[in-house]
């Protein structure tokens, strides 16, 4: 068993938050070891199918049913395809459990860069009301921080990564430091005007995306080229990923050591000093276990990956984690509820079409329970992501007439899908299965997480209001659909090691720092005490940069 003291800090996980931790720590002068369970993917060089048309991708880039069913039966819900298969977790090799009636889709990445290579790239700030929601509703734990604590850190990360969007001056959806927005098309502009006049107070705005609309030559990154092939890896570096953004920055310091194929099983702990003393991992290629040590540890293994490592960090013979004095570890697990869609036909404007393929189009921000409880039968709210587009006609039949018919475009269509806030429930929890271990000896995760009445009523409202808005805007053939709501499916899982002021009721303090270990910071989605209804990654980045600042100050002051 090898040990080393060559490092000041260890970062576990190289995804959206881990990459930020490594960048910030190395830039502040620390020697950092970053571990990731996945295999190495280098920017550009390992984007095997970037820029490739379907006929140059295996199986024409349609996931074979056989492979989907044998190895990617969970990843299929996260849009795995042959062109990005290498970025996705193999579900056959990495099993987990869930309780009766508690189906959970744990959609995981498999490579260095984590979900930064496969994310949806929508980037929003939380509002002041989001941080106050638990307190206002008396549900879940109160956030120990507010919007003002995070605002400067949002600015800091946004300026660096590049976020495109429109300034809207909405208090319930604060503006970022924006690059120009991805433009709306003519049909969306038409619809925005009609929707906003039919429903005063409701807005349809440009998508807010980490896809850049201006170059960042100092980072060797180009603006989005409108290919809409983000999931294959972007050699232009046009969207935020570890590979394009934080890894080059961390490497440039000369202080980063990156180890791929390093599966962390647990953290070693000294109860006397209340500090993490080592990080144990298994080299996935050799099977050898190693323990590495550093002054400070950042745990960024993904929301539930981090919770799994925390839960598996126990004294010999004990079932209780070193980091679970509060008894809340693994509890209050959340995900956005979605799979409500509405669509319709936009009449007219058929003399126009889109040129170029945007990576995101429009957003309808939350309009329910903003500022006050509207007595709608549910708390919190939802937003919609969508867009207008034209597709090739779909003639019936076969033969020359059909072929000719497919040379035209149909009229404009519009569709959007809702993402709703899930409340934090104490008994929505994950635990370790003591009887089943994975190939690295790590006890399997078990999920007991379900959506409740509040979420279901919210989605029913999203469906009803979505249809109303489309009809009021003048769309034809308006339809809606609801598919099965499965926690995890939105890939916005959060919670399990929530923040709070009270060490008896939370795992982390307001600095994302473990109450039970001053040198342990958990800055991914595990720390979230509620989940807003907006996409979370930008908030993880801001919280990470903030936590690193605190950690490094603490190290210098000798308080960590």
């Amino acid at each position, binding site marked *: 068993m090898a040990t080393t003291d060559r490092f000041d800090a260890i970062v576990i996980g190289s995804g959206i938050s881990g990459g930020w931790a490594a960048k910030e720590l190395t830039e502040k002068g620390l020697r950092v070891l970053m571990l990731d369970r996945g295999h190495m993917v280098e920017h550009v060089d390992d984007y095997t199918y970037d820029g490739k048309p379907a006929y140059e991708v295996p199986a024409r880039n349609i996931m074979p049913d*056989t492979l989907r069913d044998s190895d990617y039966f969970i990843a299929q819900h996260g849009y795995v395809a042959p062109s990005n298969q290498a970025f996705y977790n193999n579900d*056959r*090799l990495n099993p987990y459990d869930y309780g009766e009636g508690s189906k959970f889709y744990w959609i995981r990445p498999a490579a260095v860069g984590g979900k930064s290579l496969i994310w949806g790239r929508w980037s929003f700030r939380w509002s002041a009301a989001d941080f106050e929601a638990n307190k206002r509703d008396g549900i879940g734990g109160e956030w120990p921080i507010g919007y003002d604590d995070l605002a400067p850190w949002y600015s800091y990360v946004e300026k660096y990564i590049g976020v495109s969007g429109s300034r809207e001056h909405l208090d319930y959806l604060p503006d970022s430091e924006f690059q120009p927005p991805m433009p709306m098309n003519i049909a969306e502009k038409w619809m925005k005007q009609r929707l906003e006049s039919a429903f005063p107070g409701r807005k349809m705005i440009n998508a807010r995306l980490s896809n850049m609309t201006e170059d960042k030559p100092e980072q060797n990154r180009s603006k989005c080229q409108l290919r809409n092939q983000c999931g294959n890896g972007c050699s232009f570096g046009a969207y935020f990923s570890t590979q394009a953004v934080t890894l080059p920055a961390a490497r440039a310091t000369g202080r980063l050591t990156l180890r791929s194929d390093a599966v962390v099983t647990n953290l070693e702990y000294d109860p006397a000093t209340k500090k993490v003393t080592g990080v144990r991992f298994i080299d996935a290629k050799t099977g050898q276990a190693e323990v590495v040590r550093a002054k400070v540890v950042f745990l960024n293994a993904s929301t539930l990956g981090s919770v799994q490592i925390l839960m598996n960090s126990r004294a010999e013979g004990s079932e209780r984690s070193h980091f679970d004095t509060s008894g809340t570890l693994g509890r209050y697990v959340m995900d956005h509820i979605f799979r409500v869609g509405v669509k319709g036909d936009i009449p007219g404007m058929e*003399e*126009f079409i889109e040129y170029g393929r945007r990576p995101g189009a429009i957003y309808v921000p939350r309009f329910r329970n903003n500022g006050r409880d509207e007595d709608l039968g549910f708390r919190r709210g939802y937003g919609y992501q969508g867009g207008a587009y034209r597709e090739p006609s779909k003639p019936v039949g*076969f033969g*020359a007439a059909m*072929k000719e018919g497919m040379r035209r475009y149909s009229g404009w269509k519009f569709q959007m899908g809702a993402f709703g806030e899930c409340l934090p429930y104490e008994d929505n929890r994950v635990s370790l299965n003591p009887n089943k271990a994975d190939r690295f000896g790590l006890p399997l995760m078990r999920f007991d997480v379900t959506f409740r009445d509040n979420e279901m009523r919210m989605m029913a409202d999203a469906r009803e209001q979505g249809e109303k808005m489309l009809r009021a805007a003048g769309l034809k053939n308006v339809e809606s659909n609801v598919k099965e709501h499965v926690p995890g499916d939105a890939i916005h899982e959060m919670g399990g090691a929530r923040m709070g002021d009270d060490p008896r009721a939370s795992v982390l303090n307001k600095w994302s720092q473990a109450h039970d270990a001053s040198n342990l910071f958990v800055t991914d989605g595990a720390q979230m005490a509620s989940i807003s209804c907006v996409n979370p990654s930008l908030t993880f980045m801001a919280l990470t940069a903030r936590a690193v600042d605190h950690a490094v100050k603490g190290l210098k002051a000798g308080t960590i």
Partner: protein
Amino acid sequence: MDRRNALGGMLALFGAQVFAPLARAAGLAAPPVIDQGVPRLQVFTPDQRALMTVLCERVIPTTDTPGAIAAGVPAYVEKLLADWALAEDRRPILSGLAEIDSRSWQDYKVPAVQAKPEQQDALLTLAMNDQIPDGEEFFKAFRQMVIVGYYTSEIGMTQEREYLPVPGEYNGAFPYSQVNKVYSA
């Protein structure tokens, strides 16, 4: 606890350094790559293959641009059914080909592959309208495979349609009059 889990649990004692056949048995082998070689399974007899091939061309014939055969659609269909689709997806295709052939003997006194193109179109139309046994099930699946195979082929993407690998810019009010061909995504 099933056999895979039992074996996996034992092997965990050895870390990842396990004898390769044991690793495979326990499901520890690397993720499979998508096989792109010749089909591992012979889905069609030579006669079935010949009929499938001409029917691909009837679905998307050669016009002012190449048709399904030139675009390699028959090979795509065979590979898809052999290695990529689920086993149960082969049955309606094979039985549909048999029914079409049988109807051709009945109506035209020749195997379907030797029928005239307009007779083959008539046979496909019978299938489309479910006027031969399980015809609609065959037609829907077969048509979909041919369309996907064609419009994801090099000919389909670059000759029948226009391929824009790097648009570079977005115009949300581009004049439709300037569109020469449908853009392949």
